[in-house]
């Protein structure tokens, strides 16, 4: 139990606010709910921290949050990637400022306590007077840190069970899929992250990132001026013609399968096979013809790994909860290892077009979420999430619906309800 957690948040029961087809809007606005989420989802569960390719060299670090707790993702001298509290064990001063850097050690500006890259306390100035032995002091760290295909996750409480179990078959398949797009199996998240700050709740972003129903309406302005995208056949062609699906993969991991509605090879890259012949050849050599052809058709996944990692096609995004009414949506282009610089530059240009506070898509999504936040600001009210309930089907343990269906929202909230049990 976190002593900082308010008694109200600790005992809060949200189960009555989530039914199979309705969710109460107060879950977006209630500060007690937010505090409970920090504890039950981000402390007690697994969430995404960063990718190994962000810290390629010894001493490289990037600054992140696990829930609201500032942490550093660090490459140690042994070549391991670790997660450390960005907070001196002495008086709690933040060690590193800025978003990234390279250090030989971490030294606190206040009294000079100095830590190894692994978080052990190495030096205390004026050591004769030191009380607790340095060997017993170290930077805090999440009790559990684990990775899958280079994606690093943390579970501060250590009580969430294995990462592989949280990811499940579905989550692992999605991460494999993203990594397999690279001929070397390596991602190269080196283009930097852009943050989009929005006065709206973090769960709205998890949902709108994976909403296959809104494209034709909310983003109509883009399709009108940029016709010919892959979304035309995959999402915009009309309810009866669109064959794309959405998929609840369990554990809150949800997916839009736009690829089923693509009308040509490599539609997701907006180019022809001959323009990326090197990539096609390298992928075929690495994965074999069958898997390579599957990947060339499908392109990247479009999915949420619960609670905070959005596999946004050729982007990754981290959904950072700030408060009940504030979120930062960070994104970086999904650059691949083992491809030409020109290939990655194309990905970068696509990312700049779609994402971020000046992109052609995300500002409109932000606006919709921000208007939800305004509209629910008082006592709230119910949301209807029944769309497609009558037509979704099971494929194994996955629930699958039309791409416009709210099967994914229901999957998100079903898991949310389960993990939010006090």
């Amino acid at each position: 139990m976190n002593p900082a957690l308010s008694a109200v948040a600790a005992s809060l029961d949200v189960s009555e606010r989530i039914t199979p087809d309705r969710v109460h809007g107060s879950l977006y606005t209630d500060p007690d709910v937010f505090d409970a989420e920090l504890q039950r989802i981000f402390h007690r569960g697994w969430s995404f921290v960063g990718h190994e390719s962000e810290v390629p060299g010894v001493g490289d670090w990037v600054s992140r949050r696990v829930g609201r707790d500032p942490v550093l993702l660090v490459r140690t001298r042994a070549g391991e990637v670790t997660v450390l509290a960005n907070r001196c064990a002495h008086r709690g001063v933040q060690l590193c400022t800025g978003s990234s850097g390279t250090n030989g050690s971490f030294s606190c500006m206040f009294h000079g306590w100095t830590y190894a890259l692994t978080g052990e306390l190495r030096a205390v100035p004026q050591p004769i007077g030191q009380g607790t032995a340095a060997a017993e002091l170290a930077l805090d760290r999440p009790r559990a840190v684990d990775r899958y295909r280079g994606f690093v996750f943390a579970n501060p409480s250590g009580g969430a069970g294995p990462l592989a179990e949280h990811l499940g078959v579905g989550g692992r398949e999605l991460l494999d899929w993203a990594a397999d797009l690279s001929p070397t199996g390596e991602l190269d998240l080196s283009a930097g992250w852009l943050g989009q700050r929005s006065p709206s709740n973090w769960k709205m972003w998890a949902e709108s990132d994976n909403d296959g129903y809104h494209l034709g309406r909310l983003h109509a302005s883009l399709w009108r001026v940029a016709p010919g995208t892959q979304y035309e056949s995959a999402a915009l062609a009309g309810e009866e013609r669109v064959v794309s699906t959405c998929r609840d993969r369990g554990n809150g991991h949800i997916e839009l399968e736009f690829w089923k509605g693509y009308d040509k090879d490599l539609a997701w890259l907006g180019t022809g096979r001959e323009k990326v012949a090197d990539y096609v050849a390298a992928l075929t050599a690495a994965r074999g013809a069958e898997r390579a052809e599957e990947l060339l058709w499908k392109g990247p996944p479009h999915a949420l790994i619960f609670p905070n990692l959005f596999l946004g096609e050729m982007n990754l995004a981290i959904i950072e909860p700030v408060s009940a009414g504030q979120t930062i949506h960070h994104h970086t282009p999904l650059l691949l290892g083992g491809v030409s610089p020109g290939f990655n530059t194309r990905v970068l240009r696509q990312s700049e077009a779609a994402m971020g506070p000046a992109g052609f898509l995300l500002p409109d999504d932000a606006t919709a979420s921000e208007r939800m936040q305004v509209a629910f600001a008082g006592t709230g009210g119910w949301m209807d999430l029944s769309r497609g309930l009558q037509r979704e089907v099971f494929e194994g343990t996955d629930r699958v619906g039309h791409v416009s269906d709210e099967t994914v929202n229901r999957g998100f909230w079903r898991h949310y309800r389960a993990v939010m049990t006090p």
Partner: protein
Amino acid sequence: MSSPARSALPDGALHQLDPLLLDAAVAAFLNRESRLADESRYEEWLALWTDDIHYWVPSGAGNYDRDRRISFINDNRNRLTTRIRQLQTGLRYAQTPVSPMRRVVSNIELLSVGADELEVGSNFVLYELSLQASNELRIWAGRSTHVLHRRDSELAMSRKVVELVNASQPLPNMAFLL
């Protein structure tokens, strides 16, 4: 009453013009560009650009390789035209209604002047009322660097780089003209 004629540039190479006259023409251009952006007068603002252009809002200081690192805005002519046309659909919800804005441009300095091209730096403070949802009054500040050219008896811009003071930080919606 008629509005005064716009800063007509006399003939001749820019660097051989009377410096006071050139200063005045550049200031008049920047003031006009700011007003058109503030008032979301998309067509007129777009007309201030030459054909081969670069409109850049970097994620930090504008000194990095744009092919390796991501930017908030990194528009060539084609992409800027798409941006403007998207706004003109009237369905760009992130700017529906448009944000009332007013910016103050100051500290104007000519950085270099050639025969038919010059570079000018200036600072700005911009107040934006985000009317689309939150009604927050947002303050934006930064430095602009313009590359201006002679186009007949007027100036036109081929490059505008906007280095926001908080370019390294998460930013709220920025779907208006900077």
